[in-house]
C-alpha cells in the first residue's frame, strides 16, 4: 500500500484531510477469473439463516481465567494450563533446547515458548505475517504464511537469526481463503503442504488449489499427491504403515447434517471429490458433474458435519495406557455452520492400519455446553511431548493445555 502525505495535526480542533487514494497495483492477479459471489453455495432456503463464523479472541488470557475444571477426560488423565497469554495459538512444533514454536492465524505471530521445567516463558519470533504456520527440522524453524516461506537456521543457538527467504521456490497460490496451511515434514524428509480451495464451493480458479503437495525442504521437487481436497488443516503419518492420514473440512450451506468433515488415508494420485462429490458419496448440488463420486477416494471416518476437524496426531508415547497406542487424536474446533453446535473437543479415531472399522470416540470435552449451546474454548492442534504427555492448543483462549496420565 502506498503511503500518503499527511498534515501533522497541531492541536485538537484542526482537521487534516486524508485521502485513501487508489489501490496499489502491486498485488498479483489470480490466473483466471475468480468465482462469482452467487457460487458461494447458499440456496434460497438458507436466505434467512444467521449462522456466521465464530468470533475469535485476539487479546491475551491468563491461566487463572481459564475454567479448566470444566474440561472432562477419561479416568486417570489430568489437564493443566501449560502456557498462557499466547493469543491465537494453533500449530505446535517442537524445537531444540526445550523450545516449542507455535503458529497463529489472523494475529500473524509466531511464538517461541520455552519450557523451564515448572513454568513456560514466551517471545514472539516474528509477526505481521499473513496467517503463519510452523514446522521444525534439523535445527531449523520453517514458517509458512499465505505468501511467504521463511527458514530460521540454528534458531536454538542463535535466537535472533535472520530468516532465509524460500518463497520463490515454493510457487504459492495467491488466494487467501483456505490458504492458511498446516505443514509438516514426513518420514521421507519431505515437506507436505495442502492448498485449500479459495471458496466455499466452486470450481477452483486454477489447478493449483484443493490439493496436497510435497516438496524437498528447499522447495524443489514439487509433487502433487492428491486432488479434490477442499481444505485439509491437519495430518500425520501412521506409526506402523507410515501412510499419511489427513483431515478435511466439508463445505458449508448444505444443511446441518451434510456434508461431514472427514478423515482420509492418502492414496498418491487419488482424487478426493471436491467440488462435485463430498465425503466420498454425496454429489454436490451446485457444481454438478456426471457420476461425480465414481472413482473418488472414500474417507476412513466421518468426523461430524461442520465440526471443524483440525490437528491430527497419532499417539506413540508410553505415558498413556497401551490401548491408546497408535490411536489417531483429532481436535475439532467447533461448528459455525450448524444450528446445533458440535465439536469443541478432542476425539479419537480407532481404526485398522488400512483404515477399516474406524470408530470415533470422545477424549477431551467440556469446552461447550450442549444444553444451552454456549462454548468457551476451541481445541485446535495437538503435540506429543517427549515424555508422552499431549499438548493441546486452544485457539480461542490462546493457551496450551498439557494432558497427562498417571495410574
Amino acid at each position: 500500500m502506498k503511503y500518503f502525505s499527511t498534515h501533522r495535526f497541531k492541536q485538537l480542533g484542526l482537521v487534516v484531510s486524508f485521502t485513501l487514494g487508489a489501490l496499489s497495483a502491486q498485488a498479483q492477479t489470480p490466473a483466471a477469473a475468480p468465482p462469482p459471489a452467487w457460487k458461494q453455495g447458499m440456496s434460497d432456503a438458507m436466505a434467512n439463516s444467521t449462522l456466521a463464523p465464530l468470533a475469535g479472541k485476539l487479546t491475551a488470557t491468563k491461566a487463572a481465567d481459564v475454567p479448566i475444571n470444566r474440561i472432562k477426560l477419561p479416568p486417570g488423565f489430568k489437564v493443566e494450563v501449560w502456557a498462557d497469554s499466547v493469543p491465537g495459538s494453533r500449530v505446535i512444533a517442537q524445537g531444540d533446547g526445550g523450545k516449542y514454536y507455535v503458529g497463529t492465524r489472523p494475529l500473524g505471530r509466531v511464538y517461541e515458548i520455552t519450557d523451564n521445567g515448572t513454568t513456560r516463558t514466551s517471545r514472539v519470533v516474528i509477526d505481521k505475517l499473513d496467517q503463519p504456520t510452523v514446522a521444525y527440522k534439523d535445527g531449523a524453524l520453517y514458517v509458512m504464511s499465505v505468501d511467504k516461506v521463511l527458514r530460521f537456521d540454528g534458531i536454538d543457538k542463535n535466537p535472533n537469526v535472520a530468516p532465509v527467504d524460500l518463497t520463490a521456490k515454493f510457487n504459492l497460490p495467491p488466494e487467501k481463503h483456505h490458504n492458511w496451511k498446516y505443514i509438516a515434514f514426513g518420514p521421507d524428509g519431505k515437506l507436505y503442504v495442502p492448498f485449500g480451495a479459495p471458496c466455499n464451493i466452486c470450481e477452483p480458479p486454477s489447478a493449483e488449489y484443493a490439493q496436497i503437495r510435497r516438496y524437498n525442504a528447499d522447495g524443489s521437487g514439487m509433487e502433487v499427491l492428491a486432488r479434490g481436497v477442499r481444505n485439509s488443516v491437519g495430518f500425520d503419518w501412521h506409526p506402523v504403515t507410515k501412510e499419511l492420514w489427513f483431515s478435511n473440512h466439508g463445505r458449508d450451506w448444505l444443511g446441518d447434517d451434510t456434508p461431514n468433515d472427514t478423515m482420509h488415508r492418502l492414496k498418491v494420485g487419488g482424487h478426493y471429490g471436491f467440488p462435485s462429490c463430498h465425503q466420498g458419496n454425496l454429489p454436490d448440488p451446485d457444481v454438478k458433474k456426471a457420476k461425480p463420486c465414481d472413482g473418488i477416494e472414500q474417507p476412513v471416518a466421518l468426523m461430524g458435519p461442520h465440526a471443524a476437524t483440525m490437528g491430527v496426531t497419532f499417539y506413540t508415547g508410553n505415558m498413556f495406557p497401551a490401548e491408546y497406542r497408535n490411536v489417531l487424536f483429532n481436535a475439532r474446533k467447533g461448528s459455525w455452520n450448524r444450528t446445533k453446535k458440535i465439536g469443541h473437543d478432542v476425539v479419537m479415531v480407532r481404526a485398522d492400519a488400512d483404515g477399516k472399522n474406524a470408530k470415533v470416540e470422545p477424549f477431551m470435552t467440556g469446552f461447550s455446553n450442549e444444553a444451552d449451546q454456549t462454548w468457551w474454548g476451541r481445541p485446535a492442534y495437538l503435540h506429543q511431548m517427549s515424555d508422552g504427555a499431549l499438548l493441546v492448543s486452544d485457539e480461542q483462549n490462546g493457551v496450551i493445555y498439557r494432558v497427562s496420565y498417571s495410574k
Partner: protein
Amino acid sequence: MAFLGVAMLAPLFSAAQKPPPRAATCDVCHGPNGNSVLKDIPSIAGQPKVFIENQLVMIREGMRDIPQMKSVLQNGANSEMKGTLDNVQDSELTELAHHYASIKIAKPPTQKQADLYNKGERLSKEMRCGVCHLPTFVGRDQMPRLAGQREDYMLYTMRAMKANQVVGRDPNMITSLYGIADEDLQAIAHYLSRLSN
C-alpha cells in the same frame, strides 16, 4: 486544510462512564464520540465491542496497515513511524472497545438517490449480507455494523476486499465479494449508509 466545526452533540453516554483517556486521540480522526465527519474515515460509534477490540489488536500488531494511524501521532522525537497504538496494552484496547460500542451512532444522511438506494437494498438481500451482519445490518460479535456507516469508507473497503488487498480480515468476507461489479458495490454502500437502524 479544512477546518472541523466541532458540533455540540448531546451527551451520548452517561456522565458516570468517563471516556478512556486515549479516546480523545481516536476522536481526532474518527469524529466527535466516534461519529466520523471526515471523508474516507469510518465511524466507530455503535460498532460491536468484539469487532472494535479485534480491529484495535490487528492495527496495533500492524496486521491492518493504516498509514494514517502510523504517521499522524509520533510518540517522542526519536520515534520512527511509531503508531497510535504501539505498546498499548490489551486491557486498554478492551476498554476503548467497550467505550465506542456503547455510543449511539449518529443519524445517517437523509438525502438519497432513490434508484441507487433501491438497487442497494435489493443487492444486499440477494448477496445475503444480513446472514452475518444481521438483517438490520447492525452487526454483532466480530462482524461490523454497516447501517449508518460512511458511504465513502464502505465503498473503499469493499473494493479493497474484492481486489484481495486486505490483510487480517475474515476470508469468508473477502470471498463473498468475488466477481461483483463496481456499480453494485456503489449501490450497496449508498443503501447501507442511509439505514438508521
